[in-house]
């Protein structure tokens, strides 16, 4: 695929609002809060930022979504949308704009307001179609991963439920240590396992939080980064793929993998010069929209061998104090999932952890052992029909 822009740009400032049911804050309020926090973090004002990419799945259209609340004076502002990978798409475009030399400084910002629509959950616009599209809900689509995985790798129903429950338990454990998270309570595995069923074997605790929120990043050329911070985060790899969407018509697709994730991970690792993500990454933020998604992602991203992801989950490999912490900030599960903001929220945790600025109660120890790379994985769509984004960032440029 592409050659990539390894170490050519760096993130020098980030901001993130708390996520949750923010009845007292509008889209404009959240955009102002996260952009201001990012600018303060980088020590710059609006006048220094040459261009903006604003990601929102459905809380605004056009660049005016951002330029109006920030009263930007005729700057280029592009609104992007790529389903649940929207926030990552904003970052990706801002990074390329700076790497191209067209701009010295760009902002990527994502926002979503899901709680004032009158509906529960993510409401997608009604698109023209032939009327034969399945009207299955998102939890049901992702719940298909569970029986398929269990059958392929010989888990009985109880074993499978235990694995999913442990993933939810782990992410709530991490979210309880994050003051910005939507859900800040630990939840026992017993409560998770007995929760009301939503789809298949997924209960309410297997589903990510529906929330409002915003996150932002400021990107500059790598050689300029130290003007703004002593601890820039270098962009190593950025990969976005959109799949052929044939999983629901192709008999060979078995619902135990996302081909798009495998492809985007291989691309991002190649750009970053990585060969062993499990050994090289200090942490990963992955798209745990539903618990079986996180399970499958551990294998698709190369953190576990095929068929072994569930064993690694049960062994604690991906716990906060595990060999490779996954979703140390609580993930979509506990931090919440304001669609357009989520990709940048993931990057915010990488920013905090790689700079050793995460609060002590959730600081990962892999950094202390010398690991300097972090990954974000963002996915939009459903099994067999999705877009997938993988980024690799690091606290030092490659030698």
């Amino acid at each position: 695929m592409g050659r990539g822009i390894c170490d050519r740009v760096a993130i020098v400032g980030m901001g993130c609002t708390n996520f949750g049911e923010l009845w007292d804050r509008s889209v404009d309020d959240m955009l102002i809060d996260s952009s201001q926090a990012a600018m303060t973090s980088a020590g710059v004002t609006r006048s220094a930022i040459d261009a903006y990419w604003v990601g929102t799945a459905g809380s605004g259209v056009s660049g005016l979504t951002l330029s109006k609340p920030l009263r930007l004076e005729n700057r280029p502002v592009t609104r992007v949308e790529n389903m649940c990978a929207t926030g990552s798409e904003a970052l990706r475009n801002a990074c390329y704009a700076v790497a191209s030399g067209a701009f010295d400084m760009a902002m990527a910002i994502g926002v979503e307001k899901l709680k004032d629509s009158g509906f529960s959950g993510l409401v997608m616009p009604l698109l023209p179609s032939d009327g034969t599209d399945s009207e299955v809900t998102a939890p049901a689509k992702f719940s298909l991963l569970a029986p398929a995985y269990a059958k392929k790798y010989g888990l009985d129903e109880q074993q499978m439920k235990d694995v999913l429950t442990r993933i939810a338990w782990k992410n709530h454990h991490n979210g309880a240590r994050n003051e910005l998270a939507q859900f800040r309570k630990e939840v026992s595995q017993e409560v998770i396992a007995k929760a009301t069923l939503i789809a298949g074997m997924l209960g309410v605790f297997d589903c990510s939080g529906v929330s409002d929120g915003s996150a932002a990043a400021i990107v500059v050329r790598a050689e300029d980064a130290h003007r703004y911070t002593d601890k820039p985060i270098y962009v190593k790899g950025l990969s976005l793929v959109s799949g052929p969407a044939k999983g629901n018509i192709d008999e060979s697709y078995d619902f135990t993998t996302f081909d798009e994730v495998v492809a985007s991970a291989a691309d991002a690792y190649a750009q970053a010069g990585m060969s062993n993500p499990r050994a090289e990454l200090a942490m990963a933020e992955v798209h745990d929209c539903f618990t079986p998604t996180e399970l499958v992602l551990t294998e698709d991203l190369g953190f576990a061998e095929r068929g072994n992801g569930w064993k690694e989950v049960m062994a604690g490999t991906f716990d906060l104090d595990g060999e490779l912490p996954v979703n140390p900030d609580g993930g979509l599960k506990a931090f919440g999932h304001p669609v357009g903001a989520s990709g940048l929220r993931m990057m915010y945790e990488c920013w905090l952890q790689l700079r050793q600025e995460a609060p002590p109660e959730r600081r990962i120890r892999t950094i202390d052992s010398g690991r300097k790379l972090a990954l974000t994985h963002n996915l939009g769509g459903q099994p067999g029909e999705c877009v997938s984004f993988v980024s690799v960032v690091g606290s030092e440029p490659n030698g």
Partner: protein
Amino acid sequence: MADVMGTVVNFTIDRLAFSPSPPVAVAVVNFDGGGRFTCEMTDIERDQIGIGDRVEMTFRKICTADGVHNYFWKARPAAAAQTVGEGI
């Protein structure tokens, strides 16, 4: 479609989706001779659906909106092939 048999390769129960006959049982069906379709199951007892089950297709009501009835294909257990479904 009515004369093509298939096999359930994956399934779920969608307790959120709207349907005149909730909860919606969803099956991913691979058809004999090739092809796949994800659709609603009908003529089943609750949760009585499993990977490997043989199914046939039946043309049923999907929903009614503004007085307009919308019909499309659903899958039902092959064993029910001899009885005429009365439900939706």
